[in-house]
Structure formats: structure tokens, C-alpha cells
């Protein structure tokens, strides 16, 4: 974890913003997510500066961050007064101007802008705020879609195998088999699909299936292979899932 410790005064806000902006960019957040994190961290730091310490005699604030897989995690620590988020009433964001109160907006923004926010108080460490932003990943653009039609059985499985292997030898690793027009799948066909899946996974790729007709889906269900394969209702949905989860 990379950290920075600075005196919790108003001058710290610009430094904290620069530190967290660079972190977010290194972590691969897009512009909008980076800006949302900036605002959430700024609100959290403002709370510490204005409420945790006496402003005449501020203590330190320590900001840390790390990324793991698809999460950008930020911690904010201070040794000031204990902060209890339950003590802050939620803002009424629908009241008219005359009645509008602005308290509680900072905490509200933190929870709205971040995917997770947890406030802990530990006597040894003080206040620890942990905030998480999920990285939105974009689907892969190197997916090859192969429409299959007719029967997939002992007779036709070698043909399927051959077509798939031509793709693999030309560098394809992410493959979507669109089975919308497959009318029949035998155990030999299923076995061929399993081998293709295994091979692509060994090569660091993925196989996804889409558009199974009911009688084909039943073969997967009966053999328990619905749990093994990544099966999607439509080719569009399958396509958008590559690189984003269980395959």
C-alpha cells in the first residue's frame, strides 16, 4: 500500500487530491471514476479536517491506496474524535430551497460515489475509513464468434474441431460458439465442446456458448454441464461477458 501522511488542515486538500488522482490513474480508473473518487476522498478528508480535530490544533491524516484485480481500495486514517456515521442524519435531497439543510451531504456523497464505504474506530488506530471503487472493465474486442448449425454428434464433431483449431492456430483465444441453429447435441458433441473449452482455458482464453435451443440446453442440464460452461441466452450477452468473469 502506498501512503501519504499530512497535517489535517485545509491546505492538505489539494495535496490529497493530487495524490489520489495519480493513484486512480495508475490503477486504471477511467476519467469519470477518477473524478468520483476524488470527490469522495475530498469529502472524507474535509470531515476529518473540520470535525475530527480542533482546527487550531490539527493532527495527522494518513491516506493509503492499493489496487487488486478489479478494486481500487483507499483508506483514510486519523486519530481525532471517533466518527460515528450513524450519528449523521441523511440529507433530505428533495426539500425546497427554503427548508434545505446542507449538513450530511459529505457523507451522503461518499456513499453514493463509492461502491463500498466502511467506517471503523479502533482504539489503537483511531478512525479508519475504507472506501472501494470497482473498476469498470470493458469487454474484450478480440472475440471470435462462430455460428454453428445443424447436428453436433459423432459424425460432425470432427468438423467442428477442425474449424475451431484453425481459429486457435491463427491466434484466437476467446471464442463464442453461437448454438442458436444447433438442433441436436449428442454426448460426442458435448465431449468435443469440453475439449475445446479446456484447450482455450489452457491457452489463457475463454469459451462461451450462446443461444441454446431447449433440447440442446437439456443435454447440458442432464449431464450437469450447465455449471461447467459459460452459457448465455444471447450472443450479445455472451460477447459482452468475455474477460469479465467466470467462463
Amino acid at each position, binding site marked *: 500500500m502506498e501512503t501519504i501522511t499530512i497535517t489535517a488542515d485545509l491546505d492538505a486538500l489539494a495535496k490529497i487530491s493530487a495524490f489520489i488522482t495519480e493513484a486512480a490513474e495508475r490503477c486504471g480508473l477511467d476519467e469519470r471514476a477518477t473524478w468520483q473518487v476524488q470527490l469522495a476522498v*475530498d469529502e472524507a478528508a474535509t470531515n476529518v479536517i473540520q470535525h475530527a480535530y480542533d482546527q487550531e490544533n490539527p493532527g495527522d491524516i494518513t491516506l493509503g491506496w492499493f489496487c487488486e484485480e478489479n478494486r481500487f481500495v483507499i483508506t483514510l486514517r486519523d486519530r481525532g474524535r471517533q466518527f460515528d456515521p450513524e450519528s449523521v442524519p441523511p*440529507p433530505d435531497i428533495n426539500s425546497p430551497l427554503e427548508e434545505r439543510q*446542507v449538513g450530511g*451531504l*459529505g457523507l451522503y*456523497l461518499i456513499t453514493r*460515489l463509492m461502491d463500498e464505504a466502511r467506517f471503523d474506530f479502533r482504539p489503537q488506530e483511531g478512525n479508519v475509513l475504507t472506501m472501494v471503487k470497482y473498476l469498470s472493465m470493458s469487454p474484450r474486442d478480440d472475440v471470435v464468434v462462430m455460428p454453428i448449425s445443424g447436428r453436433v454428434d459423432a459424425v460432425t464433431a470432427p468438423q467442428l474441431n477442425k474449424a475451431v483449431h484453425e481459429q486457435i492456430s491463427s491466434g484466437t483465444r476467446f471464442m463464442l460458439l453461437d448454438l442458436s441453429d444447433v438442433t441436436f447435441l449428442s454426448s460426442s458433441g458435448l465431449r468435443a465442446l469440453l475439449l475445446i473449452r479446456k484447450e482455450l482455458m489452457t491457452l489463457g482464453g475463454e469459451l462461451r456458448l450462446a443461444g441454446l435451443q431447449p433440447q440442446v440446453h437439456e443435454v447440458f442440464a442432464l449431464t450437469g454441464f450447465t455449471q461447467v460452461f459459460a452459457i448465455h441466452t444471447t450472443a450479445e450477452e455472451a460477447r459482452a461477458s468475455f474477460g469479465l468473469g467466470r467462463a
Partner: protein
Amino acid sequence: MEISHRPMNRVDLLEVVGRVDAATATKLKQQIDALFEEGRYRIVLDMAGLEYVSSPGLRVLIEARKRAREWKITDLEGGDIRIANLPPKIKEVFDLTGFTSLFEMYGDTIEAVGSF
């Protein structure tokens, strides 16, 4: 944050550039309060160059609009704080916090100034 002030006949145009956070919100408040003290309650905030606003800045805006609207010439004519050129990411903060419905907003400063 930088504020530039352009006085016009009936309206004052304040162009707010940069970051409005807890450290700079006071400066914005002082600038608006100074206009109020001169008896000038019709203000357009040009936010085209606003990069950032956090809750202390929102607080200044809401309190300023409340005060401006207390000043009335007739029932139909009086003070207000109106906004021009709200950038999309600031609009997102306004939407999240319910501020969008609290302010009159205009696509450009001419329209905003002309609305008074």
C-alpha cells in the same frame, strides 16, 4: 479557484474557475457577500471553468440563493443566484444532491443575464 467579477447594469456576473472545496469555498462566499453588502442581489454564476465542487461549496451556493431571494423589489422582481454553463460532471453532483431543482440554470451567460 479564481473568481472574476463583471458588473453590469442590473446584474453581476461572477466567473468561477477551478476547484471549490473546503479550502476555497470561503473565498466564493466572501465575494458573494461583498455584492450583497453593496445591495446587489442579482447574480449569475458562470461555471464554465468550474472543475470541481464539494459539499462546502454547495453549502455556499444554497445559502447565497436563500439570501438573494429574500431581497424583493416587487412580488415578481427580486434577487436571485442563477447558474450558467454548468459542466456535465458538476451537473452529476447537482443531480446526486438534489441541487438541480434548486437553481435556475441556463445554457449560456447571455441567457442567464437576460433572465433577470
